[in-house]
């Protein structure tokens, strides 16, 4: 007897569902997720530290007021619960260095999520975002680069695993990241007290003694306590959040949105207690890098000491694998961008630094200068 298997019914190529499937399944580089994985491990440790400190002093969540989400939610014996927290520490370290990456990442996600959902008192916005990021890392193959797993395969002579994968975890995480800013900005926009500046002004009034005792100069304190300042500042804050939420999606505005987001999170970290939110949110900005690697060429003079140093800097700091370095004798530093445009000399150095995660914030504004744009030319153009 023979049987034929009907092929899965495919959506017509032009249908929205087919386009949706193509988007979700399109292989893209997971390099940004790998970098995020490396950065989020320490964030998890930071998140766990106060919980472990309390556990070392014999206190766990249920020794004081807590409120389970559901009566059926399982609670572990004390010793096993504390051991589980330490397993999360080990797994977070393994996640960062990329050792048994998938197992480590799933373990961290499961334990952090289980722990947060033990009580309504545990759930803060920063922890919700942390769970979301960990969920995305748990489902994405983010251990094939920047990991001991990848190094181990190389050492054993095994072929590397593909570093591209269907993009849907990345797209979902981008949606969630943008939602954090959009939801926050929208809630303020819709609240008349927030929009008018009443909330921020009143907050300053309530902590005026602390503001007076801070390192701020007296004129800055006076400005902060001035209600009319908050009338403008509140709208600026709301506009900033909404700009970040929308600006991250377009390549034209993405660099500006990332730059503003970093300023925004640094300001929040300096002015409020937000647990791990600032570190997590800044780390998560990595996901907005275009998910392709080595698609820019950095051409350097093999005989020039300064250019060799630049090459070393790029090799060490190009965590998102933006550049392929080529050596030639003579000539200025040259960058050939992914669209074929060529930049040379000091502007090329700026372009390079603006694409490295550690230096991007400092170099990006230089790229906005009119002269920087003038120096960009089609491939083959003269300097």
């Amino acid at each position, binding site marked *: 007897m023979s049987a034929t298997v009907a092929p899965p019914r495919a959506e017509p190529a032009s249908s929205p569902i087919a386009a949706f499937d193509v988007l979700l399944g399109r292989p893209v580089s997971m390099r940004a997720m790998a970098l995020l994985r490396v950065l989020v491990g320490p964030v998890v440790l930071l998140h766990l530290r106060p919980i472990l400190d309390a556990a070392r002093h014999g206190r766990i969540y249920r020794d004081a*007021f807590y*409120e389970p989400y559901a009566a059926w939610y399982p609670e572990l014996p004390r010793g096993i619960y504390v051991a589980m927290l330490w397993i999360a520490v080990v797994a977070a370290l393994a996640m960062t260095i990329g050792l048994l990456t998938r197992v480590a990442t799933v373990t961290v996600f499961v334990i952090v999520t289980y722990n947060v959902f033990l009580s309504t008192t545990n759930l803060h916005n920063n922890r919700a975002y942390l769970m979301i990021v960990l969920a995305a890392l748990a489902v994405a193959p983010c251990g094939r680069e920047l990991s001991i797993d990848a190094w181990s395969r190389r050492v054993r002579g095994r072929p590397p695993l593909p570093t591209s994968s269907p993009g849907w975890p990345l797209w979902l995480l981008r949606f969630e990241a943008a939602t954090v800013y959009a939801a926050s900005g929208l*809630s303020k926009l819709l609240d008349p007290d927030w929009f008018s500046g009443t*909330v921020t002004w*009143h907050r300053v009034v309530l902590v005026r003694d602390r503001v007076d005792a801070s390192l701020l100069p007296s004129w800055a304190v006076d400005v902060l306590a001035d209600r009319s300042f908050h009338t403008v500042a509140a709208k600026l804050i709301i506009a900033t959040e909404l700009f970040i939420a929308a600006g991250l999606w377009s390549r034209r505005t993405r660099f500006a949105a990332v730059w503003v987001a970093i300023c925004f999170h640094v300001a929040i970290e300096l002015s409020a207690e937000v647990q791990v939110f600032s570190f997590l949110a800044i780390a998560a900005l990595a996901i907005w890098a275009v998910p392709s690697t080595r698609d820019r060429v950095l051409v350097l003079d093999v005989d020039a000491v300064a250019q060799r140093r630049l090459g070393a800097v790029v090799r060490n700091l190009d965590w998102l694998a933006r550049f392929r370095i080529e050596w030639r004798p003579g000539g200025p530093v040259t960058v050939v961008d992914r669209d074929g445009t060529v930049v040379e000399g000091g502007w090329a150095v700026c372009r390079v630094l603006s694409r490295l995660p550690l230096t991007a914030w400092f170099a990006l504004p230089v790229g906005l200068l009119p002269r920087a744009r003038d120096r960009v030319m089609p491939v083959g153009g003269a300097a």
Partner: protein
Amino acid sequence: MWARRVVVVVVVVAQVAFVVRAYHAPHKEFGFQMFPESSTWQAEIVRVTYDGRRIPISDPWDGYQWSQMVRSRGLARASVRHHADAGLDNQLAFLDAALDYVADHTPRDTETRYLEAVVTTWHNTDEPETVVFRSHDRDVAG
């Protein structure tokens, strides 16, 4: 392919639902409403005994201390005016739940019928309002 579609759609729909829900739910899980209010609150919490006495919980009783039993979410020193950092609704929901928690976790106490909190709230710069929360009645006879 179907599984991928379903996961993505479910996550997106759920996230949008959480954001909408946060506008009316006291606990705004995944609603991402940051620094929502400058509101403050302060509560006088007492134990009301079966014989009608009203004893402040600032006095330890039967080996229990409120500040040791309720440490999180700014509830340890309820008599001091505090910022409701996740909004008044959220803060009051935690206080209400904390009253029930203490009522349920003080087995050596055989005189308290219920706990009561008289809460003064200041929603942003609005005039103060007073609300009263009570724990459920304790069944000390078992």
